[in-house]
């Protein structure tokens, strides 16, 4: 089909404008982080910094407790992702491969649990954790973050397991594998995209989580990066260079993960649903 010159140009022109609109805030974060302070507080913005500096990163990295908080965030994120994967793998295998009474009810439970309004349950969680004398600890955070992603992980992995042809598993069992061996050697390797998609989701959730850590952990030594970042600007006044450097450091792992995994993960999530 032939299109007029205008018809060919406007989609590309619109795409260019949109691209700039969506990328600019991210670009501006990194640009500000690398600019010398003189270029940041300039009467006219310096759009393309020419003198790059690491001073702001230096300041952010040497802020009090920075490395403790990095450690906390990494620990909580990895543990919660791992925990939810193990628990979800067991449940999703049962839901995808076995017939039993109440199966439908369990699936519906997970679908509803997936929409749980965690943001407004924080007061109740605070009281529970306090009564258990677990405030200012990383354990409740890990456990609750794992729970936040558990329902979706179960439902997604269930789709993936269902997509593995039953015959593969059966022929393995005919060849003498136990059911567990058949799962480990046949299904599990085929789940890689599904595991990747769900861990990406879990990673993002735990790395980002803000309200719960805000209410549970007042002790700075036990906080995580989002909380630190939200208070960074208050602590450093109008030092936008350092604030943007801190933001960049916090955002970078997620951005990298997303760029590398997004293709696989997103197609992973949809494949799980599309393929029979």
């Amino acid at each position, binding site marked *: 089909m032939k299109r007029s010159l205008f018809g060919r140009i406007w*989609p590309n022109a619109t*795409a*260019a404008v*949109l*691209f700039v609109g*969506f990328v600019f*805030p*991210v670009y*501006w*974060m990194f640009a*500000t982080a690398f600019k010398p302070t003189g270029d*940041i507080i300039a009467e*006219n*913005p310096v759009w393309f910094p020419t003198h790059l500096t690491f001073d702001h990163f230096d300041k952010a990295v040497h802020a009090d407790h920075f490395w403790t908080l990095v450690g906390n965030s990494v620990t909580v994120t990895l543990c919660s992702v791992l925990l939810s994967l193990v*628990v979800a793998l*067991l449940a999703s295998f*049962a839901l*995808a491969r076995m*017939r*039993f009474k109440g*199966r*439908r009810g369990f699936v*519906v*439970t*997970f*679908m509803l649990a997936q*929409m749980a*309004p965690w943001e407004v349950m924080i*007061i*109740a*969680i605070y009281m*529970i954790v306090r009564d258990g004398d677990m405030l200012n600890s990383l354990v409740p955070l890990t456990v609750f973050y794992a*729970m*936040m992603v558990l329902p*979706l992980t179960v439902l*997604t992995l269930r789709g993936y397991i*269902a997509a593995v042809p*039953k015959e593969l598993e059966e022929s393995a069992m005919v060849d003498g594998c136990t059911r567990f061996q058949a799962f480990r050697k046949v299904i599990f390797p085929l789940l890689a995209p599904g595991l990747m*998609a769900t861990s990406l989701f879990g990673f*993002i959730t735990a790395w*980002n989580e*803000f309200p719960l850590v*805000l209410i549970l952990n007042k002790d700075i030594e036990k906080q995580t990066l*989002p909380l630190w970042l*939200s208070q*960074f600007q208050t602590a450093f006044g*109008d030092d936008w260079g350092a*604030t943007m450097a801190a*933001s960049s450091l916090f*955002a970078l792992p*997620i951005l990298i993960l*997303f*760029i590398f995994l997004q293709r696989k*993960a*997103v197609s992973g*999530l*949809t494949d799980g649903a*599309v*393929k*029979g």
Partner: protein
Amino acid sequence: MSVQTEGTDTAGGPAVRKGRVPAPPRGADRASRSPAGRPAAAPYLLLLPALAATLVLLGWPLVKNGMLSFQNLNPRQLIQHLTEWNGFHNYQQVLTGPDFRKVVERSVFLTAANVVLIMVIGTLIGLLLARLGKKTRLTLLVGLVLAWAMPYIAATTVYQWLFAQRFGVVNWVLDKLGWHSMADYNWMGGQFSTFSVIVLLIVWQSVPFVAINLYAATTTIPKELYEAAALDGAGAWRSFTSVTLPFLRPFLYSTTFLEVIWVFKAFPQVFAMNEGGPDRLTETLPIYAYVEGVGNQHFGVGAAISFLTILVLLVITSYYLRMVLKQEEDEL
């Protein structure tokens, strides 16, 4: 963004889910001839950890929240571990208080504005993606993914910097465009302007999810349908309304409801932007519950607000929940 990928499974749902259906019959067949050696308890044992976790970590806080909302729980009771029941007093106080109605209206309005913008812009960009050439599309996709992936709090601080009163790039641009009164404008100084920044932030972060998934959905529309429409003499608009739109409708429904849920309970962006200020004028329901409950240490009142918030959310999304449940039952 924690919840953003969450929907992919559900959101892609109605249109594409069907593919999963073939599995059950075979499975059912299998169960009937399953070896006698495997106990019938196996599926329940496998489900046990997940169910226990859901019960303890999700069910119990919900019940606890209900119980707290009937208690008088201020710093004194908190420190001395006292349980003082006070019936419906907290609800009475919240519902007759001057703020609650305003906060509910504000939350609903903010949600409506956000969701309409997200859906309209997201759909348009999704359709645009389908029209673009390969290279341009990939470029735009990268841009969208970057915005989508930005952690909430990082994005919020970046927006604070973009809209900063001094040296903020937005004020500079507005000034240069001839709107000189904006040169030193304090965006965080007023209710409407603070909300404008929050809406822009949420829309910017949420549009990519809708756009990318909508684009993915359009790629599943069979080309033959368009050819048939063209043979019947349908123009571009006609083939859009009678082929594209009906195909995308289930996707659009479910995404709209998911966005409603996500925006309505959005906490980090609204809170970190200005902590509900100025003068508590940008508190939405979740923030209101936090400030009353934790900030002002009226935990019982905060729990009552939380409960009412969940109730409002249920009412708003009841139609969608019914749809999901029904669809699941049809499929299982």
